[in-house]
């Protein structure tokens, strides 16, 4: 018997039970990162295949963060390959960027147009910034899950999240100002 045997005896039922329920989470993340339906589908499909091949290394009880980390890696390698992709924002820029979330004076969220402009503001953000906001607010991931998915320490999760919020707020404020000046 050769080494192909262990790969063959992976129980498909266990794999499907652990990971197939998370296909919406996988698709949601891929869709937000790729911003394209078909690209997102391809990435999710590829991620499941990779997850299947690596399933013997899955040790957790919750498949969601494990799967999402794979989805994320697939999406980023696709984005890097794509000539049309935006240049990825360096992590330094996010960790040490000028954008700060401290702005407590103006509250763009209370503005009537904020909700309509929110998708456009998200669209202006670098992928890495959009990603953590989607995972936390849309997907409802905890800090601990974020640390696992993004493969960074908890402290980095908190500072990255703070800066992501600051950048989104800045984008939204800019769009609101434009919106107001157009309205006049």
């Amino acid at each position: 018997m050769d080494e192909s045997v262990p790969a063959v005896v992976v129980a498909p039922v266990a794999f499907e039970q652990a990971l197939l329920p998370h296909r919406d989470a996988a698709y949601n993340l891929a869709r937000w990162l790729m911003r394209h339906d078909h690209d997102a589908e391809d990435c999710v499909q590829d991620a499941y295949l990779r997850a299947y091949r690596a399933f013997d290394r899955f040790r957790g009880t919750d498949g969601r963060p494990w799967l999402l980390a794979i989805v994320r890696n697939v999406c980023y390698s696709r984005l890097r390959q794509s000539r049309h992709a935006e240049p990825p924002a360096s992590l330094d820029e996010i960790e040490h960027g000028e954008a700060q979330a401290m702005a407590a004076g103006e509250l763009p969220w209370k503005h009537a147009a904020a909700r309509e402009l929110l998708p456009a503001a998200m669209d202006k953000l670098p992928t890495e910034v959009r990603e953590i906001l989607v995972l936390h607010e849309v997907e409802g991931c905890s800090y601990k899950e974020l640390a696992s998915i993004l493969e960074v320490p908890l402290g980095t999760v908190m500072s990255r999240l703070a800066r992501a919020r600051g950048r989104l707020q800045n984008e939204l404020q800019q769009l609101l100002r434009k919106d107001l000046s157009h309205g006049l």
Partner: protein
Amino acid sequence: MDCKSDYILLQAYADGELDAMRAVEVEAHLRACPVCRKTVENLRAGRAALRDGLPRYTAPSHLTEKIRAVLPVTTPQRRIVATKFWPRVSWVSALAAAVAFGFFVGLQRGQSGRLLDEAVASHTRSLMQSHLMDVISTDQHTVKPWFEGKINFAPPVVDLSAVGFPLVGGRLDELNHQTVAALVYGRHKHFINLFVWPSSSGSAPVGPTESSGYQIISWIHGGLNFVAVSEIPATDLAGFVQAYRAQAD
């Protein structure tokens, strides 16, 4: 509490990530500090706006099938094949038989015999899961071109359905670290694996053999090795080989 440096703490509070004791401390501070109250209020408003204002995309219904289609063991087509043709051999006993076969026979034979051992092991393995087929087709004109470009020899693919051995499919396999073509034929509810590879890269002992309930017939023709393995009766396998050779040779 230093209001400027504790944004991270307020954020964790607004995100519900603080333990009860720390949360109580923050709440005590918030009662006394309007600046931090406003920060928390802003964080909560932002959270609510993102939760309500951004879509959570859901996987389209066909995506599940697309996912299953790329998983080696969960392809729906293969399930159909499995239920239709699944032999009444528990894979555990088949595996045990193959291991025992390898253990007893492997000691008595040299390099060429090992090829037969591996052929039996591969046959057994192919029954365990849907590793049986990489290309599923009853059409020789589909199976034959499938091998082209994957291997540098052409295994003869013939239609034997008229004599009771329907072609089921084919796959690439490995015997003794070399790539071989495996053609899969059906016989009632059983399978026959026919392994084919160039005789220049090592040959198996020619002739019929039987081991642990598996029948093996090996021959060489036209620079190719052929090893047929199955759990069907010896006379049936001989009939298969005769029919195959009548058309292929």
